[in-house]
């Protein structure tokens, strides 16, 4: 929201407490990450036993085509499923918070189910669903399909929509549509009102939902494993399959590369944003970073 309504930090002890808590949370978040980074340079196949400095794991990552393929599959799946689920989830959230329509209650309930269902149950049901769907398509249309990239994306979207809509709804709850009404009074079209009023207002919710969807997609093992086919393994599934023979610092190295890449991306987008918004500060900067 525009700056005049932005919260201010209270003074005194509360301020110190809040700042300390924020630091504590970051220390908590980054302690294992620090350890993960350190051991990616360790010349020992066990994470947790320091074996001297080496870059071998990074070299191994450079040479390991399986990992590179699975990483690229993961990123593609995460990207597509995030975009799709953000669009569908945001629309669903708007519909539920702003409108009343027939079937709303059923939809509301249906939307919570993917959050509530146990992982492995969803995995088993998607497995049965796709194998029966492909059987049917084969019988009716002679399409010989097998599971792979598409079934993974479809499944990820199926659980991400709900998470996105919950976060966006938390943003929308209690916000009324008077600003949009005012825009209509000023002859804005529906699209204009959405683009210039609604979207900036709910942007933090959308960003949050997108981050959540992406994280869920990048982390999912069980469901992905059950709906993937030959050659479509994602990184988490690949890593999970390694646990019987030991997860080596190679996976740390892959994680470090991903972390470095995402930090670089964030930095670049901030720079681009600053360059774009420097001439005239917009009232709602946060939305441009989306």
């Amino acid at each position, binding site marked *: 929201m525009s700056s005049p309504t932005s919260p201010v930090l209270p003074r005194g002890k509360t301020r110190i407490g809040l700042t300390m808590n924020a630091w504590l949370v970051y220390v908590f978040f980054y302690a294992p990450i620090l350890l993960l980074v350190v051991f990616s340079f360790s010349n020992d196949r066990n994470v947790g036993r320091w074996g001297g400095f080496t870059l071998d794991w990074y070299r191994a990552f450079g040479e390991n085509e399986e990992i590179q393929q699975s990483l690229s599959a993961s990123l593609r799946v995460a990207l597509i499923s995030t975009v799709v689920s953000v669009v569908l989830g945001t629309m669903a959230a708007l519909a539920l918070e702003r409108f009343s329509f027939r079937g709303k209650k*059923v939809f509301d309930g249906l939307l919570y189910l993917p959050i509530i269902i146990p992982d492995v149950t969803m995995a088993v049901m998607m*497995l049965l669903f796709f194998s029966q769907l492909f059987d049917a398509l084969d019988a009716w249309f002679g399409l010989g399909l097998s599971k792979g990239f598409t079934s993974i994306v479809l499944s990820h979207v199926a659980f991400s929509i709900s998470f996105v809509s919950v976060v966006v709804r938390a943003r929308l709850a209690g916000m009324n549509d008077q600003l949009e009404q005012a825009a209509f009074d000023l002859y804005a079209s529906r699209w204009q009102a959405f683009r210039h009023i609604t979207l900036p207002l709910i942007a933090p919710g959308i960003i949050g939902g997108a981050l959540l969807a992406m994280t869920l997609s990048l982390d999912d093992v069980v469901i992905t494993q059950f709906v993937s086919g030959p050659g479509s393994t994602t990184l988490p599934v690949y890593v999970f*399959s390694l646990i*019987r023979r030991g997860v080596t610092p190679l996976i740390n190295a892959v994680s470090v590369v991903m972390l470095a890449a995402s930090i670089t991306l964030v930095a670049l987008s901030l720079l681009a944003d600053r360059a774009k918004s420097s001439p005239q500060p917009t009232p709602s900067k946060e939305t441009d970073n989306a």
Partner: protein
Amino acid sequence: MRDPRWTRLLAGIFALSLVAAACGGSSDSDSEASAGESPACTVGQTDGDLALYNWSEYIDPDLITKFEAEFGVSVSEDFYDSNEAMQPIVTAGNSGFDVIVPSDYMVSVLIDAGGVSPLNKDAIPNLANLAPEFASGLPFDPNGDFSAPYQWGTTGLGVDLSVTGEDVPRTWGLVFDPALREQYGAAGSITLLNDPRETIGAALKYLGYSLNSTSEAELEEAKALVSEVVQDLAAFDSDQYDELLATGDTVVAHGFSGNFIVQFDSADNPDQYAYFVPDEGGTRWVDNMAVVHDAPHPCTAHTFINFLLDAENGAALTNWNFYASPNAAAVPFIDPEVLEDPIVYPTDQSKLEFIADTGDFEINFTDAFTEAKG
């Protein structure tokens, strides 16, 4: 006034899915029917690229390259972390995989579930290379109609001798006898496999029973034993037991032979550790190659199995992953130090037992394990 439309839509979807479920049921029986015939393939025939579904780090990448070059097909490799996850994926159909490598008991599960198709033995002449004990008479596939052994190994205990001392007794008592646990410093520093059959099986062995016992009284005894040991455990762990042992977090670890070898080899002082199958006996497991029931490329699959059963290729497997080879013809090509390693090839094989599928009693094993943990 619009309500009926929604009701109708929902009813329609419900009906559709019932049909889908019914279709699924019938397609299961289809696959069982088709599981009766083996594909008509000839030796060395290929019918497309191979999709291999295997355990991770279980095959020398050079062997894959060699196969691709020799037969002009490409091989895609995907990996699973457990038999239990692989089985439903493959059995459900349309998995797209050709060759899988299930363990012993899982072979019989897959046969019963229609997950694998019978082998066309004419297309796999190298079956003749198998040692007699592996060629037939394996409890999970008595005539070898559905599977060909890939590698075998044992389940036993890895110990840190620097804590227990060199004279540690080779017994499951190290885990199950409170006095011995205390004496050898293992109390609180033990990991057991997080697997009902293996861990309950170890307790059954310690008690002098078969690990495939289907006696409720014997199972009850084993359950009591496991439940009593939980307080002295560090963890139930099927994945990192060897690393926990190496990092000093544990002293006694229950696990698979090959993992310990790799781990001990990378230690600063390999002699600090020992692996053995306790004198009471333990599990011998065999992983096997099998062709998926709806494999898109059954002939390439047969050619691949035949390729791995070749003497030199079989030896290359063992030299790479340190598990024992069921391939008699391969022995001359296996590194002597691997052949002489008692961890890979235990000297006394008489007390070893396969885990067999016990049908309905599997539920009892799982429940007993859950109840033992509390």
